[in-house]
C-alpha cells in the first residue's frame, strides 16, 4: 500500500536532480555531486545552490500544494471535475496581484496582495454560501463559479486599462510563472504542515466521499469537516498562487491521474498528490526555462502540454 509512495518519492528526487543540472548551462552528474557535497566550484555552487535550488524547490512546493488542494476540493464537492480554483480563489488572487502591479509595487507586495485577494475570495464565497444556511456542494460550487466569473470580469477590465508596457508581466503572472518565487520555504513549510494535518482526517475524507449522510452515519461530524477542508484547501491554494501565480491544470489532473492508478484512498492519494504534483511542476519548470533558453516560457503552458497527453494515456488504459 505504501510502495507507490516510495516510487513517487524516487521520481521526485530524480526530477529535482534533473532540474538542478539542466539550464542555460548544463551541469554534469559528477559536478552536481561535488556541489551537493559542498566541494564544487564557486560558479557551479552559486548556479545550483543560489539560483536553481530555490526555484526548483519553489516549483515542487507549488505543484504539491496545488495537487493536494485539488484532491481536497474534489472530495469536498464530490465532483471529480473540481480543481483548486473552481471556487474563484485564483480570480481573487489575480485581482490582488494585478492591482499591486498596476500600482507599480515590488514583487513582495505583489505576493502579499495576491494572498490577500485569495483569502478575500475564499471568505466571500464562504460568507455567501454559509449565510444562506443550508448549503449543498452544488450550491457552494455554483456560488464559487459565479463569483469566479465576477473576478474574471474585473481582471479583463484591469488588463484593458493597463498601459501596454506593464502587460507582459501581468500575463505571465496570470499564466503562472515560478520565476516570481523569492524563497521556497514558506510554501514548503505549508506543504509539510498540510500533509501532517490532513493525514489523520484522511480516512474521514474517504467516508465523506461516499456522501454526507453515509459519513454522518459512520461517525463523521460532516459540517465542521467540510468547512475545515474548504478553508484548508483555500489556504494551500493561496500559498501556491502567491508563490507562482495561477498555474492551471496541476490541481485538476494530478489527483485524477493518481486515482486512476492507485484507487481513491485519501491516505495514499494526499501524499501521492504532493509528490506527483511537485514532480510534474519541477519537470514543467525545467522545460519552461530550457526549451528556448535563455528565454523562458510561462510554466502553466508547459504543465498543460505535458499533462494532457499523460492524462489521456492513463484514462485510455484505466479499468
Amino acid at each position, binding site marked *: 500500500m505504501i510502495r507507490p509512495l516510495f516510487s513517487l518519492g524516487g521520481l521526485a528526487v530524480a526530477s529535482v536532480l534533473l532540474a538542478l543540472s539542466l539550464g542555460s548551462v548544463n551541469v554534469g552528474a559528477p559536478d552536481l555531486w561535488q556541489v551537493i557535497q559542498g566541494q564544487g566550484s564557486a560558479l557551479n555552487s552559486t548556479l545550483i545552490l543560489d539560483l536553481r535550488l530555490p526555484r526548483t524547490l519553489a516549483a515542487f512546493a507549488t505543484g504539491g500544494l496545488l495537487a493536494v488542494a485539488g484532491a481536497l476540493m474534489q472530495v469536498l464537492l464530490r465532483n471529480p471535475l473540481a480543481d483548486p480554483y473552481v471556487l474563484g480563489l485564483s480570480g481573487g488572487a489575480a485581482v490582488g496581484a494585478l492591482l499591486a502591479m498596476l500600482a507599480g509595487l515590488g514583487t513582495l507586495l505583489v505576493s502579499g496582495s495576491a494572498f490577500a485577494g485569495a483569502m478575500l475570495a475564499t471568505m466571500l464565497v464562504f460568507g455567501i454560501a454559509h449565510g444562506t444556511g443550508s448549503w449543498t456542494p452544488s450550491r457552494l460550487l455554483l456560488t464559487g463559479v459565479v463569483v469566479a466569473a465576477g473576478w474574471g470580469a474585473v481582471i479583463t477590465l484591469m488588463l484593458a486599462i493597463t498601459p501596454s508596457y506593464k502587460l507582459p508581466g501581468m500575463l505571465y503572472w496570470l499564466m503562472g510563472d515560478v520565476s516570481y518565487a523569492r524563497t521556497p520555504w514558506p510554501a514548503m513549510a505549508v506543504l509539510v504542515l498540510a500533509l501532517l494535518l490532513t493525514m489523520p482526517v484522511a480516512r474521514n475524507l474517504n467516508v465523506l466521499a461516499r456522501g454526507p449522510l453515509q459519513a454522518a452515519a459512520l*461517525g463523521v461530524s460532516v459540517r465542521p469537516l467540510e468547512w475545515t477542508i474548504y478553508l484548508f484547501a483555500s489556504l494551500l491554494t493561496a500559498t501556491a498562487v502567491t508563490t507562482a501565480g495561477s498555474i492551471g491544470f496541476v490541481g485538476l489532473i494530478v489527483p485524477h491521474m493518481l486515482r486512476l492508478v492507485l484507487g481513491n484512498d485519501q491516505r495514499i492519494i494526499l501524499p501521492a498528490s504532493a509528490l506527483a504534483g511537485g514532480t510534474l511542476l519541477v519537470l514543467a519548470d525545467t522545460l519552461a526555462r530550457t526549451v528556448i533558453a535563455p528565454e523562458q516560457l510561462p510554466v502553466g503552458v508547459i504543465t498543460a502540454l505535458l499533462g494532457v497527453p499523460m492524462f489521456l494515456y492513463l484514462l485510455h488504459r484505466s479499468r
Partner: protein
Amino acid sequence: MSVLGTRELIINIPGRPDGSALDLSIEPGQVWGVLGPNGAGKTTLIHTLAGLLPARAGQVMLNGTSLKELKRREIARQLGLVFQERQDSFPATVMETALIGRHPWLSPWEHEQGEDQARANQALAALDVAQLSERLLNTLSGGERQRVAIATLMTQNPEIWLLDEPTNHLDLHHQVKVMSLLRDQASAGKAVFLCVHDLNLAARWCSHVLLLYTSGDACWGPVENMLVPDALEKLYNQRLTTVEVDGSLLFVPTV
C-alpha cells in the same frame, strides 16, 4: 445490548400536521418493520432515529441518553444504517466499501488491521458477494450493490440496525437470505428496524410492526396485532385478499 427509544417523537415532514407522537422502544431481539404508502415518512423516520434529521418535537434516546448529547462517533459505534440511496462519485471496490464500516472503531492514525479485514470478509461472504470483493462498485448490479451496503453495516457491527428498504432490488432468494440474516442478528442480540413494502415479508420475518399513515397518524405493536386486513387496506387505500398458506396469512392486492 442497546435500546433505541423515542419519547413523544414527531418527525418533521414539511406541511404535515403533527399526527401521532411516537413512543417506541426498539429492543434487542426484535425485528421492527415499518409499513406505509409512498411519502408517509418512512425514510424521514429512519433518518430521524439515526439523528441525521432534526425532529419536530420529542426525542430519540439511545440507552436512555438523548442522541443530541452524544457525539456522532459514539452513535456510530452503537447504531448503523443502510440508506435507500447511495452516492458514488468516485470509484471504489467492494472490499473498500465494506471496510469503511470499521471507520467508527479506528483511531485517526490507525489503518484497518487483519481483524477488520476478517470481519469484512465474513460479512461479504454472508451476503454472497465475497467473490466480488475486488470489483468496482459501479460495475455491479443493483441487487449486488444492495447486498454490499448491508455487508458494510454488518462490518460496522453496531447494536442497532436501521435499514431503509433492505430488500430493494433483491431477487427472491436474496430477499429471504437477507431477511433471515436480519432475524438471526436480532436473535444474537441486535435490535433491527427496517422499512419494507412487502407485507408478506413483514408478516413472515418481523416481530413488531409500525404502520405509518400519510396523515401522520401511526400505530405500532407486535406483528400479530398489527397485520389485520382492515388496517392495511386503510393504510394503502387498496383492497386486499387474504389467503392462508401453510398456516400463515398472505396478503394479495385485489384488482
